[in-house]
């Protein structure tokens, strides 16, 4: 027998604390597989951010730093500027990256910092108990939008790929999802590309991964994957928004 699917070396053996069916675990595995396949584990520093994935420093089998809430891109910038030879990635939730961390992610992307961001969008603040996130869907009930998100009062969900793609600085920006095997396979491809761009020293790379939070959505894990498909995907289109190749060309023509 030949093992065709097994636990990647870049994941530790520690069981993950995520709720049953939470797709954080899938995204962890994808990142770990990519580190294995590109043989980066021993020169990588990952940044765990504040959110359910804060304990990811226990799961990624490489050097890790835990960042303060929202500031993982600044921490990553610090590491990469200090040691450009290291491979650096951040793993951030949507509360972390799109709310409190907006300035840090926009500026890291705009400076073209040569690290990789794995952005997990599950439309809520998971760890603190399901409060509204900037990414919460219109009408979605959360613990701080008990009547559903009212877009007239607090606006529409923030789409990070769209924002970052609007910057002139070259980068790799793609949105994927972790809710079905097909989407997951594509997600891995995007994450791999993102790291490759970093290895080549090409550009900032950013993969937004739509993810579930069965616990705070109040849905079974499977129902949650369906909810994601039906509600999130139409608003958060899955596609590549930018590659450095395009940006360079585009740049030549546009400006």
């Amino acid at each position, binding site marked *: *027998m*030949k*093992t*065709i*699917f*097994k*636990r990647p070396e870049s*994941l530790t053996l520690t*069981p*993950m604390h*995520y*709720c*049953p*069916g*939470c*797709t*954080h*675990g*899938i995204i962890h*595995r994808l990142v770990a597989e990519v580190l294995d396949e590109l043989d980066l584990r021993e020169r990588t520093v990952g940044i765990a951010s504040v959110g359910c994935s804060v304990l990811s420093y226990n799961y990624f089998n490489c050097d890790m730093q835990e960042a303060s809430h929202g500031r993982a891109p600044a921490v990553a910038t610090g590491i990469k500027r200090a040691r450009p030879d290291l491979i650096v990635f951040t793993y951030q939730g949507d509360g972390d990256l799109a709310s409190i961390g907006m300035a840090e992610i926009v500026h890291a992307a705009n400076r073209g910092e040569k690290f990789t961001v794995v952005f997990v969008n599950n439309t809520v603040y998971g760890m603190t108990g399901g409060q509204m996130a900037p990414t919460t869907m219109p009408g979605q009930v959360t613990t701080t939008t008990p009547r559903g998100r009212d877009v007239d009062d607090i606006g529409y969900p923030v789409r990070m790929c769209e924002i970052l793609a609007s910057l002139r600085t070259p980068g790799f920006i793609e949105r994927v999802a972790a809710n*079905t*095997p097909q989407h*997951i*396979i594509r997600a891995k491809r995007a994450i791999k590309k993102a790291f490759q761009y970093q290895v080549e020293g090409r550009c900032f790379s950013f993969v937004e991964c739509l993810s579930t939070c*069965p616990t705070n959505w109040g849905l*079974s*894990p*499977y129902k949650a*994957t369906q909810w994601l498909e039906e509600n999130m995907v139409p608003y958060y289109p899955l596609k590549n928004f930018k590659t450095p190749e395009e940006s360079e060309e585009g740049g030549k023509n546009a400006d």
Partner: protein
Amino acid sequence: MARQTQVTIDKNRCKGCELCVHACPKHVLAMSKEINDKGYFYSEVVNPDDCIGCCFCAITCPDVAIEVAVGDNKDRGE
């Protein structure tokens, strides 16, 4: 069916989310009636012969509890 495959589920890593059961196109998996050490009803291989080795179960398992192997001999010919 052409090749021999083996899906191994680490019962005590399983949190009973059932994503693998839904992911499997061949209904190879089902949830047990027993609970594991953590108190979850875990996923089991119930129709091993139907497995086509697509790895969809493993791909969807958030707890990386599933390993998949394929028979070497049958493989070789392909």
